[in-house]
């Protein structure tokens, strides 16, 4: 649904990874303009992926973390490891699109 919404907003091509392992493999071979990740995923969590992007790949790609877990600790941890934004589920697709545009500075 997110991919569909972002495509509809003409924000470019959207690549989807089914789990943390696939995400890591994709990140090793491709450079993206923006990453949207959930926290809880099979193999690697969203926080691990964020840490991987910042510390190992040394990329400054904007990262939005999307999670049902809106605890203060989780949010702070996401920002500490390098996320640019945090959206708690349930979320509005329209709001997500606006945040993505803002981050990509296409508004």
């Amino acid at each position, binding site marked *: *649904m997110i991919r*569909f*919404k972002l495509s509809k907003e003409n924000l470019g091509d959207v690549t989807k990874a089914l789990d943390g392992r696939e995400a890591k493999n994709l990140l090793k071979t491709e450079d993206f303009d923006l990453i949207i990740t959930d926290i809880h995923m099979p193999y690697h969590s969203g926080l691990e992926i964020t840490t991987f992007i910042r510390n190992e790949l040394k990329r400054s790609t904007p990262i939005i973390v999307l999670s049902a877990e809106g605890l203060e600790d989780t949010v702070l941890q996401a920002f500490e490891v390098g996320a640019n934004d945090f959206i708690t*589920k349930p979320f*509005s697709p329209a709001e997500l699109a606006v945040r993505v545009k803002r981050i990509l500075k296409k508004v």
Partner: protein
Amino acid sequence: MDFASHVWESLASPERILIILAFALLTLGFGFIVVVFLLRSRQARDDARTMETRSEIRKILNTLLVDEVSHSPSSAIAFKLSLLRKIVRKSDFKKQILIDQIIELKKNLTGSSVASLVMVFNVMKLYKLSLKKLGYTAWHDKAKGIRELAEMQHRPGLPLISPFVNSNNQILREEAILALLHLSETNPLTFLDSYEGNITLWMRLNLHRNLQKLDVRKLPNFSHWFGHKNETVVLFSLSMARAFRQLNALPEIVKLLNHRSERVVGLAVETIGVLEADEYADTIANLLVTHSNNPKIITRVIQALGGIGSSQHQDKISGFLRHESYNVRFETMRSLQKLGLSFDEILNDQEANDLKQIAKHLSEPLLS
């Protein structure tokens, strides 16, 4: 064949039986493998069909959500709905897949997207399948139906859900109660009036969690149920009055200090303390006499007096420094400290080592 029959005839009877048995077992085993294989193939086919249906439905739902119903022409919406109808047709199995997808999406989204999902549920009359489940034999089907109707805010289903509040099945009771909380527009707790079951801790936590989402002004006055014959309802109402700080319920809470149940009395005392009703400090202090044989109630009273009592209660409490129950002695020390006495003053003529140990525990700076 001649050779085979010659060999067969040369065999003794037991050997023939063994061979026949072995052959029969082999045939059975082979047949079993074939049956398992066929069943698994059918299962795999069904799973693939389910995945395909789910994928088709998801694509159409995504377009509905993303295009936003409010901004789309009605012809576009009607077209998408017709596509969904074409997929599900009259199949309850496919309708169930659609319902599951709608609910899964609804849990993750807010705003106009949710309105779109509810619209699909109503316009396609998917609630009929959920209502149908309420009449199924299996309790888990009924529970699923209740949950779907609650999740999709289908208020007309309320009269059919209400009877399950007093079901023998605990899970059904809990689902029905939670559904009433979601669906009831006026007082969502009216079911308590005639509730006969046990309000478990799980139910209490969930009810509390859902009540917290309501506008505080719409919360009922929980003292309404203080006189209920079901003790768990009284306990629940009392704990909610405490949680939501309903100070206007205090006069009724005080009446509960005479309740037949020790648990209710204890919770009433605790509630008076938590609500900081110091005007009732003397009232609860009297319980130290009337319930002198009940260490649990004494502990609660002493704890409460530590918060709402005054120096005039010190003498009443200090008599419990020599109580046989360790908890009573501990709480007595703590409350006396809260009421302004130092440990030296408390331990004045007390030589008991355990009291000194309690004082040391309470004054441990690492624990403060």
